[in-house]
């Protein structure tokens, strides 16, 4: 599903984001990627959605070599990967419904399909009653659930969550992780980039630990190994 072979990312003049990193994530896995600041977690996330290109090595997603993906192909890739960020990245001037529908509209989906899919995904994340609110009228946890709903509209095989609980309290964090587990149970691969020890330890899933751009640990039912 996700294959990285000897990937390095160097930012000029000589800052190493990733060093010779190789990974293989199978379909349907729930993988946590952990590491301290500067370990290369965000660089890895950016490479997976083609926001950055690797300096060396190859990246394949679902059999598609995206190492040197063309700019015009990037929207197609992003419709296949659901992305969730710590800072939500919602369109503030659009309602919850419009934010979710937007991902379908830009893909040229029909009105009928939009009216079919949007209420469905909003129901999955429990926001069907708040469809016509604007993001600033929602709590942090609710905003993150809107992002998750938006990322689900294309039924992505992969869901990439980069620090999704970084801005949330314990209660909301648990809610978000439950939603991610639910999505994983439907068959989607979930890649969770986090430094939240409790979340990682509670999941009891595969944990890949990064340090200085390298994989220092890869455990099938891992724990958060790094010191606090």
């Amino acid at each position, binding site marked *: 599903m996700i294959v990285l072979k000897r990937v390095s990312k160097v930012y000029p003049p000589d800052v190493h984001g990733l060093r010779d990193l190789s990974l293989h994530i199978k379909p349907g896995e729930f993988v946590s990627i952990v590491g301290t600041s500067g370990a290369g977690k965000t660089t890895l996330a950016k490479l997976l959605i083609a*926001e950055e290109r690797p300096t060396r090595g190859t990246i394949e997603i679902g059999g598609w070599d995206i190492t040197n993906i063309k700019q*015009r192909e990037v929207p197609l890739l992003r419709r296949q990967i659901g*992305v969730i960020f710590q800072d939500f990245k919602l*369109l503030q*001037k659009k309602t919850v419904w419009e934010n979710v529908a937007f*991902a379908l*509209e*830009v893909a*040229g989906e029909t*009105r009928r399909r939009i009216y079919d899919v949007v209420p469905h995904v909003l129901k999955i994340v429990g926001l069907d009653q708040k469809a016509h609110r604007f993001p600033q009228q929602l709590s942090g946890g609710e905003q993150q659930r809107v992002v998750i709903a938006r990322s689900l509209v294309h039924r992505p095989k992969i869901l990439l969550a980069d620090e999704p609980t970084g801005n949330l309290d314990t209660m909301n964090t648990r809610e978000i992780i439950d939603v991610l587990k639910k999505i994983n149970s439907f068959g989607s691969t979930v890649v969770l980039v986090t430094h939240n020890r409790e979340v990682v330890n509670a999941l009891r899933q595969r944990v890949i630990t990064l340090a200085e751009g390298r994989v220092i640990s890869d455990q099938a039912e891992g724990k958060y190994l790094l010191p606090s």
Partner: protein
Amino acid sequence: MMIITSTGRIIAFAWKNFTRNAWIGLATIVVLVLSTLSVNILLGVNAVSDSALHRLEDKIDVSVYFLPETPPVILDSARAYMASLPQTKEIDLLSSDQALNDFKERHKNDPKILTALGELDKNPLGASIIIKAKTTADYPFLVEALQNPQFANYVESKTYDDNAAAIQRVQQISQSARYFGIMLIAIFTIFSILIVYNSIRIAIYTQREELGIMRLVGAGTAFVRLPLILSGVLQAILALLITALIVMTAIAFLDPKLRSLFDGGDSGLQGYFLINAWPLIGIQSAAIILLVALSSWAAAGKYLKK
């Protein structure tokens, strides 16, 4: 089908962008109105000064006075020759009898002059022709043409020599005024372009995060760029309508006031905008819409690379 759906959505996004970013849009509209207005004010000032100069130029003529004994055939040939020149705009022949009648009419309340005139055996006034040139630059040529040996010996005097300096001065002023007007309009147009481009850039800069999010959820270049360009075009159309309204109101208010300065004659302001209405609307609309569209296209491009 997908193209129709996508086009419809791009227009809908543009409309939402236009209405939901009303305050940023208002700032852009104000800049657009001020820019187009400044160009129109200069065009109006130029039209009025042009009209004033034309009136001044119209007052200039050359009067050629012939000796009283000049035979009518010479007068007719002089008139025909001067009228045949392409530089002549208008020519009037005043016979010696008409000249005497005019003189008497002018001095009808001055019995001394009329008595002195009565004591003379014959009409002391000669005929004259009054020539108006097409442009002030043509006068030296027409004066030169009066040296024609067919009638030059019968010419007693001509007024051009007295007015030559004044004519030259008017000519210089009108040339400088027109040149200065064109320069000023060109400079203001360049300033307007720069101001409009930067205001569009600022408006799009405030939306940079949104553009990034659109890309993140899989929006193609057209879906990000075209709504911005279209909403910019909507702002431009609104700005043009506001400018047209202000210009029309200003003309209706100013033209009667300016007429009094022109002795009740045409100030040139209303006439200029009426005669050139369609070219002015067409050129300004095309320029502003093109400028806004290109500015939006260029400014949005910066945020489409990620």
